């Protein structure tokens, strides 16, 4: 891992555009350089995040010394270039191209979703002819046809720019749409009987320059000028994509991807994009209720809070603080997490707190391993993937890894237990027996150290990585929730020996990293400090600090099942659905003395609650979240909550008051600021700074101050003058904080705060790699080792309560290698009896080439016959017996 990587071209050239001299990086495209210098060259097909194709011919210009009319979108700038964008011949061409585009265009703008923010309308106004000379019959097609469950295509409106087809192939890696036919019959088509079922299909609607591609959920819902917009962060998964959330009449109507260079680069996955629907689901619980003799009764908030506080008080007095446990909190904001940690640890005094539900990684590792940023992927020496299928669980991270591997040619090693979305892009693939990931990791360390590892794929990968600069980025997660985290941790211990290694933790719940950072895990306090290290710091700030390390989710559930938990708080958690061992989760809910649900929906877990405190959800609340790289970003509040729901952090504060401790936090910004003052890793991340910094701030702030970009403009979706930009990368203009600029003040303050806490507060936790982990047990020759992970459209609320997403769920089947199917002796699709040490279920069995022999894959779906019924969390791995039913 030394130097030798290609340098990006930083040489500057001087050129002239319309008589004005400008400077630009050599090789940049003329269309971009012109725009950056205030000359907007009209375009349709060019998109900054995709390779130029020169199809629409809208951007033709004249360049001295070049024959004809080169497209500005395919012409790199060069020293001394003299370009003209507004000569008479150029204007005539612009007129001509627009006229061509319009001759077959239906001009049904009044009923088109794009009307009002349509590049074709806008550029016709700015650059086009005033009237059409076309008197022939226009081309006709059947009005919109579905490309998939989410996207419709109006072929009459399509201007054949190829943005959608190129996105599907180049960016998403799902070449499921292409052009069919030719001449003016050319149209976007899917393959017969194969819908455009990409997880990223909604992006094509956003970047389509006309109203040809339509989102089913948004169609006919609004005129763009009626929408009001807030910037926000998607919390559907832990990538933390930046978005522009739009509403009208207090209904969320659209989420657009905002181009955050460092994270999502403008893209969203469909679950994130359309998942807003669940906010308005009929199933939402909107009033507090408490159980009175086996029936839930709606009560007022004071009554509900009083009842819960009394239960807590009684439990603490009679059974001690440890009789209270809190599960969840990974779906809320940082402020929610902090307030609940302060309530649990700082008021009640229990450390039985866990944001994860036994399906993640030990907090110890997540908080202590050296971290990578998503952007490191592009410059990495190599990328190692050991974890779940990112395409299913962290979709936009999948896009970023794919981009690094394909466009930036970073070597990628796939160590997942079965084929995953990234497998086709991997430099090398090494499938190990699930449970033995540590062996593969040790081999990699050997290979990178120059020794033969005994695995040809790993050797080839190490050879490809040799001589490259940059960090080795390990994407680390649970390749399968059917096995314990131990094999992953053993692998992590091995990886940690690599030089310049950094980790991206592949945990999926929206704010799980924020929750863990803020201490929603046993043994930790806010700001990535351990309970022991931080006790002295927090004791004078809070009322109390837990005496000893508490239980994690599995421990809490076992204790609850044994009747040892008096009050169990479910903070947006549904352990029956999400904990790998459903049976244990059910027994735990039944065994807990009093169950408090802080949630927005009834679930199998919360149905049994004794008190239900309905909370606000994403879109209804402000605050911040932290993504998987430790980036803190703001949430946008776009609609007012319905009913009498309350923010989670406020519920914690209300309960604290009733337990005799007033947090004295009135506004959400005050919570943010308290975090920035007391949590060592968050030192300096004040609300004021977060509001000013375009890309959020990465924790710990002190190490990332230099990355802060200060906003110099607003979110630009509908430009005041000039064309609408929602189809182009949506950005907020920003600059580095300057010495004298007013923003320098906030950055300085953050620096001061961070320095003060570094002196006074405990050190951040570092992971001790001497993790002591045993080997996976051997597997008998007839058993299949179970591998289980999430699918994007799973049984969670966001899918099931969003009408557009719910139908996209696939039914589950046990996937095995064809050889194993032959051995079982049944046909594809037959129902078989599947037995683990935990249970026996009946399932259809199918073959899939992605599954290695000896392994069986079953999605971890929440309902139906999911893997969670079979998984035995008391063993490191889950082996299955598969038999015919006779």
């Amino acid at each position, binding site marked *: 891992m030394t130097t030798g990587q290609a340098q990006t071209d930083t040489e500057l050239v001087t050129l002239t555009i319309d008589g004005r001299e400008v400077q630009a990086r050599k090789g940049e495209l003329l269309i971009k350089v012109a725009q950056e210098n205030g000359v907007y060259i009209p375009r349709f097909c060019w998109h900054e995040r995709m390779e130029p194709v020169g199809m629409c011919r809208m951007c033709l210009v004249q360049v001295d010394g070049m024959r004809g009319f080169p497209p500005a979108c395919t012409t790199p700038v060069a020293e001394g270039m003299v370009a003209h964008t507004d000569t008479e011949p150029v204007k005539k061409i612009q007129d001509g191209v627009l006229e061509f585009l319009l001759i077959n265009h239906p001009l049904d703008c009044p009923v088109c979703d794009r009307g009002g923010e349509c590049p074709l309308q806008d550029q016709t106004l700015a650059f086009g002819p005033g009237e059409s000379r076309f008197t022939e019959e226009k081309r006709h097609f059947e009005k919109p046809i579905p490309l998939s469950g989410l996207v419709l295509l109006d072929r009459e409106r399509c201007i054949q720019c190829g943005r959608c087809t190129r996105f599907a192939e180049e960016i998403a890696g799902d070449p499921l749409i292409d*052009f069919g*036919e030719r*001449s*003016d019959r050319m149209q976007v088509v899917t393959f017969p009987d194969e819908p455009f079922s990409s997880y990223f299909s909604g992006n094509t609607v956003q970047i389509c320059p006309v109203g040809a591609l339509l989102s089913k959920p948004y169609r006919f819902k609004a005129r763009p000028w009626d929408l009001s917009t807030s910037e926000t962060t998607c919390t559907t998964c832990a990538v933390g994509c930046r978005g522009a959330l739009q509403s009208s009449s207090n209904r969320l109507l659209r989420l657009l991807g905002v181009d955050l260079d460092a994270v999502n680069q403008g893209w969203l996955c469909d679950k994130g994009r359309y998942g807003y629907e669940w906010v308005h689901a009929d199933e939402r619980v909107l009033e507090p209720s408490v159980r009175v003799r086996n029936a839930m009764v709606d009560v007022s908030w004071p009554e509900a809070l009083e009842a819960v506080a009394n239960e807590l008080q009684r439990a603490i007095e009679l059974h001690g603080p440890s009789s209270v446990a809190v599960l969840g909190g990974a779906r809320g904001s940082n402020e929610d997490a902090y307030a609940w940690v302060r309530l649990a640890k700082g008021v009640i005094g229990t450390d039985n707190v866990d944001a994860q539900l036994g399906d993640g990684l030990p907090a110890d590792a997540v908080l202590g391993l050296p971290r990578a940023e998503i952007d490191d992927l592009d410059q990495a020496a190599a990328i190692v993937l050991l974890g779940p299928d990112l395409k299913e669980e962290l979709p936009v991270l999948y896009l970023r890894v794919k981009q690094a591997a394909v466009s930036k040619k970073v070597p990628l090693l796939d160590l997942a237990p079965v084929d995953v979305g990234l497998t086709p892009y991997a430099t090398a693939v090494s499938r190990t027996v699930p449970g033995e990931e540590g062996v593969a990791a040790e081999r990699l360390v050997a290979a990178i150290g120059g020794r033969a590892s005994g695995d040809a794929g790993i050797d080839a990968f190490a050879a490809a990585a040799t001589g490259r600069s940059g960090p080795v980025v390990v994407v680390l997660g649970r390749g399968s929730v059917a096995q314990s985290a131990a094999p992953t941790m053993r692998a992590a211990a091995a990886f940690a020996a690599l030089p310049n290694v950094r980790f991206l933790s592949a945990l999926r719940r929206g704010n799980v990293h924020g929750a863990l950072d803020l201490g929603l895990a046993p043994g930790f306090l806010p700001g990535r400090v351990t309970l022991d290290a931080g006790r002295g710091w927090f004791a004078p700030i809070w009322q109390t600090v837990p005496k000893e390390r508490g239980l994690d989710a599995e421990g809490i559930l076992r204790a609850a099942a044994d009747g040892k938990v008096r009050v169990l708080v479910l903070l947006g958690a549904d352990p029956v659905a999400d904990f790998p061992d459903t049976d244990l989760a059910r027994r735990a809910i039944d065994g807990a003395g009093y169950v408090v649900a802080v949630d927005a929906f009834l679930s199998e877990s919360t149905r049994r609650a004794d008190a239900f405190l309905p909370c606000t959800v994403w879109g209804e609340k402000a605050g911040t979240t932290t993504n998987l790289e430790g980036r803190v970003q703001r949430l946008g509040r776009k609609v007012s909550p319905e009913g009498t729901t309350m923010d989670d952090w406020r519920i914690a504060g209300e309960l604290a008051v009733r337990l005799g401790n007033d947090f004295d936090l009135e506004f959400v910004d005050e919570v943010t600021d308290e975090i920035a003052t007391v949590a060592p890793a968050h030192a300096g991340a004040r609300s004021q700074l977060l509001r000013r910094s375009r890309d959020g701030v990465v924790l710990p702030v002190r190490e990332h101050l230099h990355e802060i970009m200060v906003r110099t403009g607003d979110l630009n979706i509908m430009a005041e003058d000039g064309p609408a930009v929602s189809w182009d990368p949506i950005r907020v203009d920003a600059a580095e904080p300057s010495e004298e600029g007013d923003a320098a003040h906030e950055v300085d303050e953050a620096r001061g705060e961070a320095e003060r806490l570094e002196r006074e507060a405990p050190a951040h936790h570092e992971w001790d790699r001497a993790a002591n982990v045993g080997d996976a047990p051997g597997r008998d020759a007839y058993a299949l080792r179970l591998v289980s992970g999430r699918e994007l459209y799973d049984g969670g609320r966001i899918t099931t309560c969003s009408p557009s997403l719910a139908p996209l769920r696939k039914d589950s089947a046990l996937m095995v290698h064809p050889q194993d199917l032959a051995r079982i002796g049944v046909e594809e699709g037959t129902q078989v009896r599947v037995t683990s040490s935990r249970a026996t279920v009946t399932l259809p069995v199918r073959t899939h080439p992605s599954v290695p022999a000896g392994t069986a894959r079953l999605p971890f779906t929440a309902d139906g016959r999911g893997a969670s019924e079979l998984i035995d969390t008391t063993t490191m791995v889950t082996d299955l017996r598969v038999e015919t039913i006779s």
Partner: protein
Amino acid sequence: MTTANTSEPFSETRIVTRRLHERPDDSWTIDGALASGAYDSLRQVLAQGDPSAVQAEATASGLRGRGGANFSTGQKWSFLPKDTFPRYLVVNGDEGEPSTFKDRMLLERDPHQLLEGIVIASYAIQCNLAFIYVRGEFALGHDRLMRAIADARAKGFIGKDIQGSGFDLDVVVHRGAGAYICGEETALLESLEGERGMPRLKPPFPAIEGLYAKPTVVNNVETLSTLPHIVRMGGEEYAKLGMARSTGTRVCALSGHVKRPGNYEVEFGCTFRDIIFGLGGGIRDDNALKFFLPGGASFQWLVEEHLDEPYDMDHAAQKLGTSLGSGAVMVFDETTDPVRVAWRLAKFYSHESCGKCTPCREGTGWVEKILYRILHGYASPEDFEMVCDVADNISPNFMAAPFNQTTLCPLGPSVASPIASLAKYYRDEIIERIAAQQAEVPA
């Protein structure tokens, strides 16, 4: 000046068409070909053992591509980056230009000559894999080519260690699926790769990044069929044929209203009269000539006053504002309605537009529709000016040649050629005709 309907005797200069004329019954078989000297040039090249010498001969011969773009073959080869392997030779046998049927004859009647040219070219550029893209409709040509490849392989002219020289060459045949645009070299490469046939952006040129992003030479069937003869005669000797920078011979596909249509191999420097009258026997029924298309369908038309202009590529481009293109001459007599011809050509280009870029995708269809109305009496006098302006938006300053383009490849601007020709020769006639048609329509 001779009058239009007289014909001087004129004879062909048969080089690439020699064998097929001499051995009408077996020119395509391995035995027939070997009996008439096939693969002798290859043996000579391999014995000499110097690829650069072959390149030098090709350059010295002045050979220019016979696919339509008239680009120097030796120069094209020289663009290949040194030391970048693998590299490929791609043979363009898609011949889709209207009225062009010379490659078809060369494929059907003399496939070994083509194969010999392919092996020589591959040796010259040091590639070990050649692809032949054959127009899908060429059933007989394809069958004979496959047979010829099998026979040549059996005789050791293709395959490993050709004739003991240590040089290997494999040949892959791909059949097109009926798209004219797949004759354009970059669209052809896309099609070969299994993609939709649409031209690529240039640069990068195929010589740098061609098939599978490797350096690639694309050459036409006739171009390659000429190579064995250049080797045999020597480049300089070959260059003595023809005139100026148009050296050698060209197989001219003559069609339309002539008495004896067919493929004629002529030496550059003859006149159009030699071709149309001397070889074609003149206009059918001894009618008067109205106009002729001098090089396939894509370039501006010529009329009677051009009959004595020399058949020379540079002269056509620089003096006549047209091109010898694919080498096909299409002749129309006085009974022809030029608007009908223009409309039919526009219909072809509109139908064949690959759809990739706006001006061609939308413009060719619009042109066709306007011409259709003019043809059938539904036009107003402004329509002719409008169709000219539409042509100008596809090919700015379209009356002049060489043409400009707002399109991505030259297919779109081809539709401007018939319009320019109408405007040049028949504008008044058309305006009058529209006026007359309008007068007929009852108010």
